Structure formats: C-alpha cells, structure tokens
C-alpha cells in the first residue's frame, strides 16, 4: 500500500462512539480519572478517620482551626460551581461573552480560595502548628490536616490552570455550540474539586 492510500484510509475511519458518553471520549476519560482521584481522597479521609479514632489526645478541630473563614471558603467554591455551570450554559448556547465572563469569575473564585488557604496555613504555622507537631495534642492532627488540605489545594491550583487554558484557547469561540463538551469536561473536574471540599470541610473542620 502506498503512502497516499494509507492517508486516505485513516481519514475515512471514524472514531468509535464512546459507549457511556456519546458526546465525547474525553468526558468518559474524565469520569474514570475522577473515580480514581476519588479513591485517593477516600483513602486519605479513611486514614484520617483511623488515626483520629486511635489517638486519645486528638485536638478539637473547631477550637484550634476555627471555621468562620473555611465556611466562607466553602461558600466561595459553591459560588464558583454556579459560575462554572453558567459558563457551560453560555458555551452550549453559543454565547461567547457569557462563556468568557463566567469562566473568568470561576478562575477568580478558585484563586481567592487558594489565597485564603495560603493565609490560613501561614496563620496556623505562626501559632506553632507544623507538619511534625502542634501545641494542642496528637502530632498527627497537624500532619493529616496539611496533607489533606494540601492535596485538595493542589487540585484547586490544577483546576485554576485548566480553567485559564480553556479560557485562553477559547477566546475565538472554539468551544461554542457542538464543541462545548470541552467546557463540560472542565466543569466535571471543577465540580469534583468542590464536592471533595464539601467532604473535607465536614470531616476535617466540623466533626
């Protein structure tokens, strides 16, 4: 077979349809990735629970960490999820301005979340809560706190970068209408980050 024939045969082959997400293979890929990522967070939270249950001098998170700022951070991520669905709605309906504005608002929400988390970490470190210990009790209290919130923070940072990439590459309207599935896949990731924070907020700060 000569080179020209090979090129033609490749062009004629349509990619097989994704069995669960007919819109795109990328969406199925993101769901499978998120399922794996959920197991990482599940393992961390289960380990946190096990260590906490077996430590008699575990400090009270409510008294040591404080919840007013983290409650606001939770609210902020919920708001950013709403702006994300509005960005997707704009992309689906071919509204470029709506897509751009709401994606930018989502980026701002994620960035402010990261800044607040950095402030919280700085404050906690200042009062003696480090990776290796804290003034209130079991050293693993602070170790698990920094690992879980840090792992989640890395996800938020990754999400902000992902949002920025989609916003910049979509400035000329590449993700409108039928191509909105790229925004939907991004949304799946961002909502997952919000979902995990809802659980982290409850298990690490409130209980």
């Amino acid at each position, binding site marked *: 077979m000569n080179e020209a024939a090979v090129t033609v045969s490749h062009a004629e082959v349509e990619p097989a349809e994704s069995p669960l997400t007919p819109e795109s293979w990328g969406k199925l890929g993101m769901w499978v990735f998120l399922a794996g990522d*959920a197991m990482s967070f599940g393992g961390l939270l289960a380990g946190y*629970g096990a260590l906490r249950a077996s430590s008699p001098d575990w400090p009270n998170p409510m008294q040591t960490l404080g919840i007013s700022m983290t409650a606001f951070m*939770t609210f902020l991520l*919920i708001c950013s999820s709403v702006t994300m669905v509005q960005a997707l709605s704009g992309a689906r309906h071919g509204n470029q301005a709506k897509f751009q504005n709401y994606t930018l608002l989502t980026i701002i929400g994620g960035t402010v979340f990261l800044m607040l988390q950095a402030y919280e970490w700085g404050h906690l470190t200042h009062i003696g809560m480090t990776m290796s210990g804290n003034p209130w009790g079991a050293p693993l209290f602070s170790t698990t706190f920094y690992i879980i919130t840090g792992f989640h923070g890395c996800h938020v940072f990754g999400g902000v970068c992902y949002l920025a990439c989609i916003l910049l590459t979509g400035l000329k309207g590449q993700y409108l209408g039928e191509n909105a599935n790229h925004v939907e896949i991004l949304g799946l990731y961002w909502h*997952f980050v*919000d979902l995990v924070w*809802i*659980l982290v907020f409850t298990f690490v700060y409130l209980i």
Partner: protein
Amino acid sequence: MAQAHTHEEPNYMNIFWALTLLTALEIGAVYLPLGKLAIGFLLVAMAITKAALVALYFMHLKFERSTLGIIALTPMILCAFLIFMLLPDLTASGKQHTPTAKPAASESAPAH
C-alpha cells in the same frame, strides 16, 4: 460523532440555595446541645446530601446513563469497604488506650 446527550438545564440557582442553606445548617448543627455521635451523624448526612446535589445536578449525573453512575459510585463502595476493613484495627487500638492498661505498665516498672 454522535449527538450530545440532550436534557433540560436544571435550575442551578435552586441547587445553589440548597447548598448554601445546608452549609449554614452544618455550622449551626455543631453548636446543638446533642451528643458528639448525634452531631457527627447529622453532619455526615448533610455533607453526603450536598455532595449528591453537586454530583447529580452540577455534574449532570442525574441525566447521564446509569452505567456512568456506577463508575461514579465505585470509589464510594471501595471507601466504605476500606473503612470496614479498618474497624477491627481501630477497636483494638481503642482498647489499648483504656485507663486500665496504664496501671499494668507502671506496676512492671519497679521490677527493674
């Protein structure tokens, strides 16, 4: 390429208000004059409800094929399994921390 899986957009603002209300209720629940276990149960129930709202409506899982829901549920089943696997270990370590274990250790000290 196949056509997109079309469905009507849910009312996202209703979901937003439900999530905000549940967050406020969670913070209020912490100060309820109830036992730790009861408060913990309430908080976990509200957190799972919030997580389910995000997954079903924001991530559109409610409108997807049920097999995709199984993929999403698999990690939760595995996490529940992991917690049950850890329970015997936790029970054993809990017994080690009971006050009766401490005098036994101090009694053996003078023998040296």
